[in-house]
């Protein structure tokens, strides 16, 4: 390896070091901005359970008569809770 090659290699190495670092920085910015992962707030599953308990204090409902959904519309989320109430007679008993 010649004297000049040594410097050429050293320079190439330095530039390369920059490229992975650059990739990382660009990705961090884009991932933060796109917020690809707006996660459902952690409390929602437990809120769902507690809501069910409250409903069950007043009416007897089966698990499959309750339907919970989170819908996303633009910047906000809608928690949709659908409960099929039992018939009059069943409620009376």
């Amino acid at each position, binding site marked *: 390896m010649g004297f000049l090659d040594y410097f050429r290699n050293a320079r190439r190495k330095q530039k390369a*070091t920059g490229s992975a670092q650059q990739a990382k920085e660009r990705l961090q910015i884009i991932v933060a901005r796109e917020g690809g*992962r707006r996660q459902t707030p952690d409390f929602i*599953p437990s809120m769902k359970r507690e809501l069910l308990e409250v409903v069950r204090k007043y009416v007897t409902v089966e698990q499959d008569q309750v339907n*919970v959904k989170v819908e996303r519309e633009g910047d906000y989320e809608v928690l949709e809770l659908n409960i099929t109430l039992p018939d009059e007679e069943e409620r009376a008993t």
Partner: protein
Amino acid sequence: MAKIIVVTSGKGGVGKTTTTASFAVGLAQRGHKTVAVDFDVGLRNLDLIMGCERRVVYDFVNVINGEANLNQALIKDKRVENLYVLPASQTRDKEALTKEGVAKTLEELSKSFDFIVCDSPAGIEHGALMAMYYADEALIVTNPEVSSVRDSDRILGILASKSRRAEEVEEPVREHLVITRYAPERVSEGEMLGMDDIIEILGVPLLGVIPESQAVLNSSNAGTPVILTEGSDAGQAYTDLVARFLGDERAHRFLTAEKKGFMRRWFGG
């Protein structure tokens, strides 16, 4: 009840099918009854990588349409006990995988399997959404490269909002990061994103790192999932990955550049 695992990435050609094949083989080798399901309608490939392409008679869409039952469509692997493949259809109708049809098929598979591994197509269209919708866990396959990492972030967002678990407000899909085609020497030269950077950007726990390996191409050519190629680096990395998935402690390997010996440097290794 089976556990449903989707192998997904957003970006194409990053190693989903390669990972699905070795992961499914690995689970079966550990004694779990496993089925690998190809969701890539129109671009069936899992059968080729698993080496059972000549035994495909019926496929996933035939099952959904009631033209065949599951037992007729499932292909039993000849090398590994407990392993089956459900091939994708070559139809060009991407909507052939209906939500109801997929649900029914997975439900039926659930009764007799421990693990259902779903090989997702690339992209974020219907097929990819169907592959992830019913998942309990997800392997996010990522290459150390900007567009792959960004697409993985995108897929993570979709898992967190469009999966059944998200819609029905259950515990979220459990995510695992799988970095494939990792070239340690290029990472140490600063030319390629390192695994720590990728973990930091995506914020998903690492399940395994699969090195860039000639063994993968050889095994695809032969139709033998690389995990069955004993002594291969990628194969060993997949074996470790499966062990970690099942809860074993395994140190990550194949992460550092192999020092080129004097002779190899001289004569070009």
